[in-house]
């Protein structure tokens, strides 16, 4: 690990301002992803701004009837919250499907959204990777791609976003609240937070330098049957091959987001009109333009079958 200076932030605005004043600064909250990457020298921040002491660890009701989840609420606390379990079951289920008990105790809501890909070539510092060294090339293309993305990818990067939680937040139409380095705040729909790789896969979100996520906002509950189904190589503690976050209503309408297939939670609202026509019709629209490799083409079929299983489960 490279040496770094360290400070504890006094307020969200001060943290954001400090982040652009100090060259090479990064925020640290749970640290479960950042420290892993720092040990491998994939991340080499010169300065860490510890945001753990900021009072961003509560879940409060909003005036609109939803919930405001502080950025520092742990994955365990969020999944265990009675309101989340009752009204946002897809979120509680997604959180519990991810990582291990120890990691969920430490990992935070904002950190989960901002975690980096687990593409093995991103992790292997001996290999070119456009995320690690922009312009160096993508070792995954033509490499071992079974775990990697099938849609939304580019000729520069085929990595997936690893989060389960983000898939549920996308289905729930959640929004993130941020504070920028100049103290201004804004709201960004989770749908727009993550960028597709294009030819700049190292730029993963629309956040500006220094911009700090302070909360995630859930809209008022929409009811329905909420399911998170994750298909993976082990029964526990493994990243998704394909996951489906679903909110299904009795009238046959619904919202579906997929994990494990794309550089961001994958949802196409227009495709949801096809839901009453069955999993094949829906998946065909949802996955239109997919560019799988020989090794991960199974993910397209697996997405359709997993969705079929979810629809069956919702029917009871």
């Amino acid at each position, binding site marked *: *690990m*490279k*040496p*770094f*200076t*360290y400070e*504890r932030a006094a307020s969200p605005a001060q943290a954001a301002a400090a982040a652009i004043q100090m060259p*090479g600064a990064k925020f*640290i909250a*749970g*640290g*479960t992803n950042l*420290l*892993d990457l720092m*040990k491998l*020298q994939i991340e*080499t921040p*010169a300065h*860490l701004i*510890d945001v*753990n002491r900021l009072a961003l660890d509560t879940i409060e009701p909003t005036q609109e009837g939803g919930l405001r989840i502080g950025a520092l609420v742990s994955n*365990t606390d969020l*999944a*265990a919250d009675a309101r989340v*379990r*009752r009204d946002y*079951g897809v979120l*509680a*289920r997604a959180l*519990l*499907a991810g*990582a*291990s*008990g*120890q*990691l969920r*105790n*430490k990992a935070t809501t904002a950190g989960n959204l901002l975690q980096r890909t687990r593409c093995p070539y991103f992790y292997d*510092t*001996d*290999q*070119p990777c456009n995320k690690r*060294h*922009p*312009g*160096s*090339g993508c070792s995954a293309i033509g490499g071992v791609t079974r775990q990697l993305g099938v849609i939304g990818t580019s000729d520069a990067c085929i990595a997936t976003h690893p989060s389960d939680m983000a898939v549920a937040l996308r289905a729930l139409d959640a929004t993130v609240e941020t504070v920028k380095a100049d103290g201004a705040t804004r709201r960004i729909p989770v749908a727009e937070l993550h960028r597709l790789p294009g030819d700049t896969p190292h730029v993963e979100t629309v956040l500006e330098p220094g911009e700090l996520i302070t909360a995630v906002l859930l809209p008022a509950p929409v009811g329905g049957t909420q399911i998170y189904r994750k298909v993976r190589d*082990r*029964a*526990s*503690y493994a990243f998704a091959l394909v996951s489906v976050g679903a909110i299904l209503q009795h009238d046959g309408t619904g919202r579906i987001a997929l994990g494990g297939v794309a550089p961001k939670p994958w949802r196409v609202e227009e495709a949801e009109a096809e839901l009453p026509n069955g999993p094949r019709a829906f998946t065909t629209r949802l996955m239109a333009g997919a560019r799988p490799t020989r090794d991960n083409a199974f993910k397209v079929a697996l997405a359709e079958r997993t969705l079929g299983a979810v629809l069956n489960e919702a029917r009871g």
Partner: protein
Amino acid sequence: MHSHSEPGLSRRDLLVAGAATVAGSAATGPAHAQDAVNTSSMDTVPRAPVHAPVRFTVNGREHALELDTRTSLLDALREHLHLTGTKKGCDHGQCGACTVMVDGVRINSCLTLAVMHEGADVTTIEGLGTPDRLHAMQAAFVKHDGYQCGYCTPGQICSAVAVLDEIKAGIPSHVTADIMATPEFSVDEVRERMSGNICRCGAYSNIIEAITEVAGRAA
């Protein structure tokens, strides 16, 4: 004490930078290789280690330490406080050998910095029981042979104690059938909740028996 690390770091970094430049050139030609050089050269500027003070309590004893900011909580426990019961397995949060309790919840001590724990209350395997007065979970692991080599055992035991607390606190898991109901102890619940603790010897079935016995005794 710190001076030796600078030449060491810079030599190693030059090697890393050299490799990255070669890789960049081979893959994408000179224009892109320039990026690799720039990124790498930023990383090759030698940085001096930084030290910071931190105070926390471990097993009821307060400690004031002055640590390199890079020190993980695990290394602080093992190398600075000489509490070597907590083990370093993968050092990347994948194996659970380093599991300790911080402010009542289990975490991977390898994936957190010691300086982040100002004022924290840490419990390690040494704080659970002593050779003369074993914690019930330690005694059950002995009775049921919940180990072979023993390396993962302190992490397994700390995790197991926390798992029973988490079930008691009503925290659901991936295998909890009714997410609104209060979770109940079951072997499936334990298997799921213990999945962050790997045992290369494969003592899992005996570990489950040990935890089940303690859960029954506590119930």
